[in-house]
């Protein structure tokens, strides 16, 4: 056990009388990474923010908090300002919003240097450049005068890290530092953090929900469930022999199983040379720049009852492809759905055909109209496409569908905000399947959900497919989920098909570097499962 750096004794946090964290005790030593793991709402971020006095005034924090020899409970406001950003560095989840959009990188990093070390002018600029080089940003000199919006998500997160380590903190608090990033970028960032930790001898409190990352990048782990500490221990031990039931549940929550087999028949959906281009804006008196090819022309086939997985990182054109297939965005090429040419239809005939291909979107919070009760949301399409149905029939169909997706019947009159993310996603599925579609497009349906909920949803979807014989177009960046859902898979990168084929074949023996990188970054659980 290394020398303890951050020590929390029976830390409890209550908001207006509601206990969010209950008697959490942990220590982070110098040069080690402690992972704080839990599902959303388990109080992991709140504990870290509470320990550092960053919670709003309606929070009550009790218990002992020590950083080295400093008693954090007795610290003055002035003391805190010196501590945060000085001895303690923070990295937050959202690289897109954590940087001030109105200041250049140089200014933002320079500010922390000026405040804590009194460095300014040329010296600060030099130091900033060193920092950018330390976090391995290419072309550091150029990046100094760049605005945040000119950087990609991964680059911004690196800038955030540079800012956090600018004052050589003893403790680095990383709150889901890679959740918003692509899997391949994730690995680089975490490797960088580990390197910096060893180099500076920092202690690191690593908050995450992703057990894969914990397994590879943390020394010790502390599992939280609804504000209660479940267990703490060495990562290897916890994973081999979880002591608490909840930890076991988390570890077992990896999606598993395979979709039911299908026989190859004539295709339900076929796309030939399907491409999407977006016009770039034209400046006055200049020639119009070449359009942006979001999806390069590609061919695609989907049989009845089959699932085609589409894999790719952000910006690879997966969602655009789905929208094009659904005729929700302009495209070129041919789309044939069950014998009719979708790309030639428009207006009323297209709207009537829409009943047969439905979609479930990624964000369970954004895809349900907040002002309609669940019954209205689900029955809306039914009422429109089958105006001859009687009220009683509509109600019965709604009830049946709710039961089918595993929701209690009494939820029909409630509103979406009363449901959790997983339940909302079930409502979205219910809204789609009540029309009895033959094709369901699932655009990252599980990526906003906790692992345990994800697993349930995947089982539901597989179950529905087996019962109704629907075809799925399943979009995901998560290869574990794809493995559990897809018969065939198509890997997209920058709008081009990199690789495609039978799911197992592609995932086990990838032929391109890009797929291999994806499998390596995310697919370790696959390989471990195949071994065990």
């Amino acid at each position, binding site marked *: 056990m290394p020398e303890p750096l951050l020590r929390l004794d029976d830390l409890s946090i209550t*908001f*207006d009388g*509601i206990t*969010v964290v209950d008697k959490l005790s942990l220590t982070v030593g110098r040069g080690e990474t402690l992972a704080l793991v839990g599902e959303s*709402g*388990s*109080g992991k*971020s*709140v504990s870290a923010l509470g320990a550092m006095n*960053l*919670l*709003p005034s309606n929070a009550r924090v009790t218990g002992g908090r020590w950083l080295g020899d400093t008693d954090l409970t007795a610290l003055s406001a002035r003391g805190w300002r010196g501590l*945060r*950003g000085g001895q303690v*560095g*923070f*990295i*937050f*989840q*959202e690289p897109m919003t*954590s940087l001030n959009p109105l200041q250049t990188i140089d200014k933002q990093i320079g500010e*922390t240097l000026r405040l804590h070390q009194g460095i300014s002018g040329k010296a600060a600029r030099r130091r900033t450049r060193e920092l950018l080089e330390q976090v391995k940003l290419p072309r550091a000199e150029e990046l100094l005068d760049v605005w945040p919006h000119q950087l990609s998500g991964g680059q911004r997160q690196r800038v*955030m890290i540079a800012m956090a380590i600018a004052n050589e903190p003893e403790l680095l608090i990383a709150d889901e530092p890679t959740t918003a990033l692509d899997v391949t970028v994730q690995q680089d960032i975490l490797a960088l953090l580990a390197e910096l930790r060893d180099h500076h001898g920092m202690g690191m409190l690593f908050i995450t929900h992703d057990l894969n990352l914990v397994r590879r990048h943390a020394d010790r782990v502390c599992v939280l469930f*609804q*504000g209660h500490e479940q267990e703490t221990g060495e990562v290897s031990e916890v994973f081999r022999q979880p002591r608490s039931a909840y930890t076991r549940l988390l570890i077992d929550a990896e999606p598993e199983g395979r979709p039911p087999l299908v026989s190859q028949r004539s295709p339900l959906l076929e796309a030939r040379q399907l491409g999407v281009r977006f016009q770039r804006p034209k400046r006055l008196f200049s020639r119009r720049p070449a359009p942006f090819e979001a999806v390069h022309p590609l061919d695609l086939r989907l049989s009845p009852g089959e699932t085609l997985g589409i894999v790719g990182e952000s910006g690879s054109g997966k969602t655009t492809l789905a*929208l094009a297939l659904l005729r*929700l965005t302009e495209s070129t090429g041919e789309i044939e759905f069950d014998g009719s040419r979708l790309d030639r239809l428009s207006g009323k005939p297209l*709207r*009537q055909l829409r*009943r047969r*291909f*439905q*979609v479930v*979107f*990624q*964000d369970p919070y*954004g*895809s349900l*109209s*907040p*002002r*309609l*009760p669940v*019954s*209205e949301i689900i*029955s*809306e*399409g039914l009422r*429109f496409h089958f105006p001859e149905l009687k009220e009683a029939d*509509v*109600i019965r169909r*709604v009830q049946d569908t709710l039961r089918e997706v595993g929701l209690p019947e009494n939820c*029909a*009159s*409630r*509103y979406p*905000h009363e449901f959790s993310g997983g339940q909302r996603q079930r409502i*979205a599925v219910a*809204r789609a399947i009540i*029309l009895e579609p033959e094709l369901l497009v699932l655009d990252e349906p599980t990526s906003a959900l906790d692992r345990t909920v994800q697993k349930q949803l995947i089982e539901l979807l597989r179950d529905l497919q087996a019962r109704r014989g629907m075809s799925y177009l399943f979009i995901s960046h998560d290869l574990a989920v794809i493995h559990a859902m897809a018969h065939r898979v198509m890997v997209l990168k920058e709008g081009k098909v990199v690789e495609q084929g039978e799911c197992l074949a592609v995932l086990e023996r990838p032929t391109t570097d890009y797929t291999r990188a994806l499998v390596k970054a995310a697919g370790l659980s696959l390989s471990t499962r195949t071994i065990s």
Partner: protein
Amino acid sequence: MSLFSPTLSPITRRRLAVFRANRRARLSLWLFAVLFLLSLVAELIANDRPIVMQYQGDWYLPLLVDYPDTEFGGFLPSAADYRDPYVRDEIEANGWMLWPPIPFSYETLDMELDHPAPSPPTLRHWLGTDDQGRDVLARVIYGFRLSVVFALILTAGSLVLGVLAGGIQGYFGGKVDLIGQRFTEIWSGLPMLFLLIILASLVEPNLWWLLGIMLLFSWLGIVDVVRAEFLRARNLEYVRAAKAMGLPSRLIMWRHVLPNAMVATLTFIPFLFTGAITTLTALDFLGFGLPPGSPSLGELVAQGKNNLQAPWLGITAFITLSVMLSLLVFIGEGLRDAFDPRHIQYTASPDSTAGPTRKPRDA
């Protein structure tokens, strides 16, 4: 609308609860409702003819029916003037009359003043008379009604026009939006006040003319808000989901986009409403508003200005306007808060408590 709950939907109930919890808004609403209802039956409160009367054993309803003078022993075929001493004595000798509490209408000239007009408040004229000898209280009651009704119609009209124009621009975007925006920009550049003044010299400006002209311009304020909301909402996932379901645009706009855009629009209504009242008052004050003789608060303000020796005119106008506008603003505030989803407290999940804490910028 709701499928399984024939009564109020929970969200409406919650909104009502939020509104009720706001004491100031609730009291203002009550007070305003009472005042407005009272003003709606202004004819029963302030009138220059009796409500009911009995004359020579017969019942009469002068409030509703115009009886000729000859009916009561006069010799003119014109409508009877019940305030005329001769008619009054004649009727009271042969029956009785039930007068409203204020026996003057807004245009009644009191011929029996013991002071030169404007006369100060007395028991006969509770708030005094204006410079033509008309009862101020009666004019305030009728003027209040006219202002509120005018503002109500104007607000409703501009809401319909504004939401329609803004909604279409925002939802369809592209060229529709571009052309629509330029048009509204040019349109809003037209000087409304001058148009009204020019109009006042062309036609006899009555209530409907004023309403029509003001309606041509007042919807512009809402367009931007509604357009922005629709523009934002058309790319939301639930709107996309509705499109994918095959719903036609008008249904999507009506059911999915509009209810969510209404919150932003509602915050505008109080301003629109009070704005309508002040505009009408200002026009009347300048003399370009309602035809002479109409009960208007603006005219009362003008009289207060012209007769500084008669402070009851200015004070009454000021108090009436400020009370009315304050009440409306309070109600509007309460409404806006009630419709604001952030004010709706739902069962606190740990997520929602952790939510707002994610923004420190100290690193």
